[in-house]
């Protein structure tokens, strides 16, 4: 709780994390994991049918996957560490202490994966086809392992399950959402890879001669993988804890649009629909349509953004379910902080503020400390633009008194009565000043 406060103007820290996260998921799922099945399958097909040209397609696609995985994919992976550390140091610091060895093993697997990608790509023409395929299979296996590990950690944040009472690593790891989330992600990775390939293939003009075979293969592949994705994702929604389910509505759109909540599931059906349709058209017609090269990847980008947003939101107000709030306060320490005051242990949040300004400064400090993880001032989720605070200080105080119950996706206010009043003063002043 006592770290420097990092504020990102306008878009806020969460949006920044989301941007890095979405790019990372697209590349790491799509190119690294999904790419392993799609490309190795394509290579296998080309070898079995002795189709040199198709083999060349697989090779050229692999080059792009290799470039993306080793630059954008690897760096955004590190980037997620960098960014989340900055916005929830206590959260990541705590997760590290529980999961260090899982991450360490993930790291070893990840090194293997990168080496295998490199060998798979760089040795394409230099190895005998059989040997090369074997490298491909090793690559598939390692990339699956990276998923197996990371899903355990992600799921833990959402449903810490028995870990809360036993504090044992395995209880945290194999929690209730584990299996469905794993399958959902693997299937998503599979579809993404195909979508990337369709896009890249559109630019490989000199390889148009094998498009019948390539598109038929992609079509069949989509028709097979998309239903798996649908099934796994629905199973996942089924096991999301009650609490989370109630909030999904707010995650998808803003509070004002809650009535579209049901659309969340319909949306996923639509995404899978688009994929199946694309698959069917490609399988039957085997023609390149401009839209069919670009549409799948666009739709999937939105779907990934949505999926991650739901996951992120489902765990609000916690970083670790039931243990640690998003703003770095632990659940058990809240009554204590409310008793002694949040100012007592806060030093960094004061930086740059003039303490002599009284309530305005104290309120601002408390906002930084407790709210700025999720709120900006006037940008995305901007606090001063909230209708509920618009009437001013009095309304703000009323809000602070009760939001713990009416808005349970935010961590409860931690602080004494006079601190609460100072925050209300700060919020009221900002919200009324246009």
């Amino acid at each position, binding site marked *: 709780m006592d770290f420097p406060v990092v504020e990102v103007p306008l878009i806020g820290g969460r949006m920044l994390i989301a941007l890095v996260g979405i790019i990372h998921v697209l590349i790491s799922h799509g190119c690294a994991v999904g790419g392993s099945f799609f490309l190795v399958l394509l290579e296998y097909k080309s070898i079995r049918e002795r189709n040199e040209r198709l083999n060349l397609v697989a090779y050229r696609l692999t080059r792009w996957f290799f470039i993306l995985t080793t630059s954008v994919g690897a760096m955004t992976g590190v980037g997620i560490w960098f960014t989340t550390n900055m916005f929830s140091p206590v959260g990541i610091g705590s997760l590290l*202490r529980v999961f260090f060895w899982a991450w360490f093993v993930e*790291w070893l697997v990840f090194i293997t994966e990168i080496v295998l990608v490199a060998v798979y790509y760089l040795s394409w023409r230099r190895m005998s086809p059989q040997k090369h395929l074997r490298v491909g299979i090793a690559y598939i296996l390692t990339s699956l392992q990276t998923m197996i590990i990371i899903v355990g950690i992600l799921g833990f944040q959402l449903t810490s399950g028995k870990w809360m009472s036993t504090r044992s690593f395995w209880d945290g790891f194999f929690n209730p959402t584990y299996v469905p989330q794993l399958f959902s992600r693997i299937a998503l990775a599979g579809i993404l890879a195909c979508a990337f390939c369709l896009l890249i293939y559109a630019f490989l003009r000199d390889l148009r001669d094998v498009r019948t075979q390539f598109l038929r293969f992609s079509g069949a592949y989509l028709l097979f993988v998309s239903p798996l994705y649908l099934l796994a994702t629905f199973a996942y929604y089924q096991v999301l804890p009650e609490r989370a389910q109630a909030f999904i509505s707010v995650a998808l759109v803003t509070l004002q649009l809650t009535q579209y909540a049901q659309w969340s599931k319909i949306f996923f059906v639509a995404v899978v629909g688009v994929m199946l349709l694309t698959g069917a058209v490609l399988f039957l017609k085997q023609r390149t349509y401009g839209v069919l090269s670009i549409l799948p990847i666009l739709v999937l980008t939105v779907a990934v953004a949505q999926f991650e947003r739901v996951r992120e939101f489902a765990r609000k107000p916690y970083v670790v379910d039931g243990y640690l709030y998003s703003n770095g306060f632990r659940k058990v320490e809240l009554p204590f902080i409310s008793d002694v005051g949040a100012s007592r242990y806060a030093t960094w949040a004061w930086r740059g503020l003039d303490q002599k300004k009284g309530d305005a400064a104290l309120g601002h400090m408390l906002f930084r400390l407790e709210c700025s993880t999720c709120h900006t001032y006037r940008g995305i989720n901007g606090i001063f633009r909230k209708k*509920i605070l618009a009437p001013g200080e009095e309304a703000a105080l009323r809000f602070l008194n009760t939001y713990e119950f009416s808005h349970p996706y935010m961590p409860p206010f931690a602080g004494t009565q006079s601190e609460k009043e100072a925050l209300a003063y700060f919020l009221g002043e900002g919200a009324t000043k246009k």
Partner: protein
Amino acid sequence: MTNIPIDIPLSLPAPDGVLKALLVITFIVHILFVGLMVGGAYWSVIFKLLGKEDPFYERLAREILDTVTINKSLAVVLGVAPLLLIGLTYTGYWYTANMMTVPAFLSIIWLVIFAFLFLYAYKYTWDSLGDRAPFLHLSFGLSACAIFAFVPLIFLANINLMLLPFRWDATKGFIQALLLPNVLFRYMHFFVAVFAIIGFFAAIYFWCRGRKSDDLFYMRSQKLGLKWALGGTLLQSIFGTLNFISLPQGAYSRTLLIHIAAALALAAVACIALVRALLTTSGKPIVAAVALLGVVALLMSFVRHTVRENLLREPRMVANQRTLEYQTSLATFLKTYTPESGKLLSGEDLFKRYCTSCHARDRLLLGPSTQYMVQKYKGKKEDMAAFVLNPKKVNPDLPSMPKPPIGQYEIEEIVEYILGGSR
């Protein structure tokens, strides 16, 4: 001085010493590949420039660039473990330093992505652009090198800042962190090491590749590598010394001096081995030099570790003091604290808790007044309960009401209170 963070109240996943040893080891491997990446990129540009005169250099530039493709990816991936470990063992210090320089720190990601893409562009347009638009082609490589020149500065600023908590108050951001005493000299120390590393690598790599071939290229590049390795190692007698004397106050201790002395002696022997390697064609002196300098690297990493521990000794006392105070106060408080739970709240209390942020008795807040509710729902308690449990859009001028987090018992009490009490 109270802004040194309180420790996170969960135990470490392994003894502190084990984790720190792991940090030192994984970091050496990481920095080795960073050296190969940065040094390789610089070589591929420098020798491409020289290649106009002499095709030998052109070929060397290209072959080295091929190795960068893999080495750079490994450099990044290998960096993850030391990143996790430093977060684990120096949590408060490392996070705080990064957060103080956050724009610079986060820019590392995008900068390095661009550097990598530039390197790919440099590599894959070597034939197509190299002759047609040599300037453009070279600019890809140069851009990557420029980024590689800048990024280490960010890391070095943060590492220094992390070790000087007593300066945190006076340091406002990245630029000021750059001016901390040790940063610039350590930067030079790093870059000289990078050129020594790539020289070594080239010597070994081309020696291996050339064993079964009588192509003179391999012999010549091996010798060139050895010269860079020797030059870099010798130059460290200047830059290493500058780095050493610019260490902040409190960094020095006796173990530190002993280890440095040992490292210097070994480095001197390694230089002799390098000279021998230059004069003969046998691989043995190279192997000896590599082994010796490996040990030197290990000793130096240990020296860095000692510096960290020495500098953080006092800050840690402050942090421990704060953590202890905090934890005992919390424990004492929790002993007497009983949460209000299980208590059944009245309809009025529940209404205050769950509804008053949006509803008042007689005026419109975010949602309509309770007077309106009474008018609309008098005698229709079930309907109102159904609405509240599952709000639908009613008035197009108002936002929608979110689903409140309450169940059957609460809703009955609340509806009873609103419709009954307002009568």
